[in-house]
């Protein structure tokens, strides 16, 4: 069992303001082996270049895997202008160079190359373009390309997250970029909203709303904003989860007694009951191969994580030991899962490897709930608290780097990391 070592590295504050919202990001800790990289200002449009490189820099730093090296006035734009030895002396293992500008059709475009200063080789070039106003998307894309080239893992900076913002009686369902910017309000109600769940292709969200006076499950398109009520039985209808192929949803209903897991098509048809425990079975999540479900149940007395086959049959208990465990979610490779662990009144984010069965605590404990993996399994998004408010937070899967995201106002709750675009 390992705890996040607090105060082991610099605390970095990134303040940034947008027209719509003020977001503050606090980064605590650092990865074991950080790659030193210089983001050289692009040629062409200087202001655009600075804006884009600022987004790339923030993304790379948030991952905990990079350290930024100051280009100190040097700005080569072509490979032939690069003095590799000089960058090595400055301590940069890699550097990015290029051109940024606005095209004739008003689109913005960046042509950039990533260079390995140690091996003194060109790691390849890319042209990234997007509609005017999509500067952040361009920055995230470049950060993804750099991250992928230098770490070998899939970048997740271009992904989105969903969460619920609660302010007094007002609940908002919010979709944002993975760094918390670019917030879009999908739904705003004076009744609770909870348990948002992404469809596998990122086009729809399922969630629980109380607008009918009780918990009911809706599915809403992110594009057309159209909503469909898919489960509105007597009692509570909740905890929606999509199968990886999008053909099925798991839900929790109380229509036949206690909270039990059911399967249904996303249009609400073909309902069939999955669990028959008579206890509370809730928070189902599909394995990446679609064959199993993890869920939380108090059938054994305390609340623990169980796994069962989607084809039916008995459930196997996955977590043992003291305390209660809630909100399980598989990692993208299906080899581990993340969950909320509660012990002695404190809530922790924990992971467990299926093979070893070992639980690992990733956070120091407090009010940390509802974790979900980034699509590359390297970061975990969860709900935390700070300065008297509910906030969003991430922790690297090794527990070394933590990030707190203070979004505008109210309490951020129930975050879930979305799929790859």
């Amino acid at each position, binding site marked *: 069992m390992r705890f996040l070592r607090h105060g082991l590295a610099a605390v970095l504050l990134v303040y940034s303001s947008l027209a719509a919202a003020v977001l503050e990001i606090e980064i605590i800790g650092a990865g074991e082996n950080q790659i030193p990289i210089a983001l050289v200002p692009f040629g062409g449009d200087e202001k655009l270049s600075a804006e884009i490189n600022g987004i790339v820099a923030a993304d790379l730093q948030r991952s905990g895997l990079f350290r930024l090296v100051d280009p100190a006035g040097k700005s080569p734009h072509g490979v032939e202008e690069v003095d590799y030895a000089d960058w090595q002396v400055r301590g940069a293992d890699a550097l990015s160079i290029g051109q940024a500008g606005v095209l004739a059709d008003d689109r913005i475009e960046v042509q950039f190359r990533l260079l390995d200063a140690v091996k003194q080789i060109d790691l390849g070039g890319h042209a990234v373009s997007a509609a005017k106003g999509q500067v952040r998307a361009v920055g995230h894309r470049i950060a993804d390309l750099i991250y992928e080239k230098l770490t070998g893992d899939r970048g997740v900076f271009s992904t989105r997250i969903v969460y619920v913002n609660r302010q007094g009686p007002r609940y908002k369902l919010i979709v944002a970029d993975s760094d918390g910017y670019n917030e879009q309000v999908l739904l705003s109600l004076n009744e609770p909203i909870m348990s948002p769940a992404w469809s596998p292709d990122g086009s729809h969200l399922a969630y629980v709303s109380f607008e009918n006076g009780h918990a009911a499950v809706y599915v809403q398109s992110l594009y057309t904003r159209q909503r469909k009520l898919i489960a509105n039985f007597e009692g509570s209808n909740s905890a929606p989860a999509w199968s990886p192929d999008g053909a099925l949803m798991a839900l929790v209903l109380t229509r036949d007694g206690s*909270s039990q897991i059911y399967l249904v098509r996303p249009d609400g048809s073909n309902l069939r009951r999955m669990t028959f425990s008579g206890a509370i079975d809730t928070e189902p999540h599909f394995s990446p191969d679609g064959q199993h479900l993890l869920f939380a149940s108090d059938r054994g007395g305390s609340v623990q994580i169980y796994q069962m086959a989607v084809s039916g049959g008995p459930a196997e208990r996955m977590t043992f030991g003291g305390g209660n465990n809630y909100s399980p979610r598989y990692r993208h490779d299906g080899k581990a899962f993340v969950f909320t662990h509660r012990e002695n009144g404190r809530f922790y984010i924990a992971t467990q490897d299926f093979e070893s069965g070992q639980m690992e605590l990733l956070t120091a404990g407090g009010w940390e709930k509802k974790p979900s993996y980034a699509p590359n399994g390297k970061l975990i998004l969860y709900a935390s608290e700070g300065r008297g408010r509910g906030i969003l937070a991430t922790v690297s899967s090794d527990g070394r780097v933590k990030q707190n995201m203070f979004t505008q106002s109210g309490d951020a709750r129930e975050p879930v990391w979305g799929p790859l675009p």
Partner: protein
Amino acid sequence: MKKLVMSVVLVNLLAACASHPPAETPAPVTETAAPVAAPAPAAPVAVDPLNDPASILAGRSVYYPFDVSTVQEADKPLVQAHGKYLAEHADRKVRLEGNCDERGSNEYNLALGQRRADGVKKMLELSGAKAAQMESVSYGEEKPRASAHDEAAWSQNRRTDLNYAK
């Protein structure tokens, strides 16, 4: 980077509780079928016991220890009295609203709140109420009556409210 363990996560939810009657006071008086012409300072005839602040029926909330969903001994007479009242007033309908403190996951608490409300419903039924007179729902931890983050607040939030239809 030390943090207060149980420091505030939720703020200012009093407004969300506005629809619940406070624990110690009776629900707002509802107009009933008995038309008394006079303003009736102390009308002795045909008073709905539901509106009598001295009646056990004035109590509209049942409270629970942490992670418990069975009606406690102390609250059984209250639930049984409401069951008897519903049996004698077939036209009355009641909504049972289960609530939880904020400890646990939102979804687990939703399930626990439903189990609390269903437990009250079952006891009302045993005391004579008909299923058609009752609806049980859960708000989980989403509508706390007390917004602080300590046992004093949590003990207020672990409850089932009996909300009579107007």
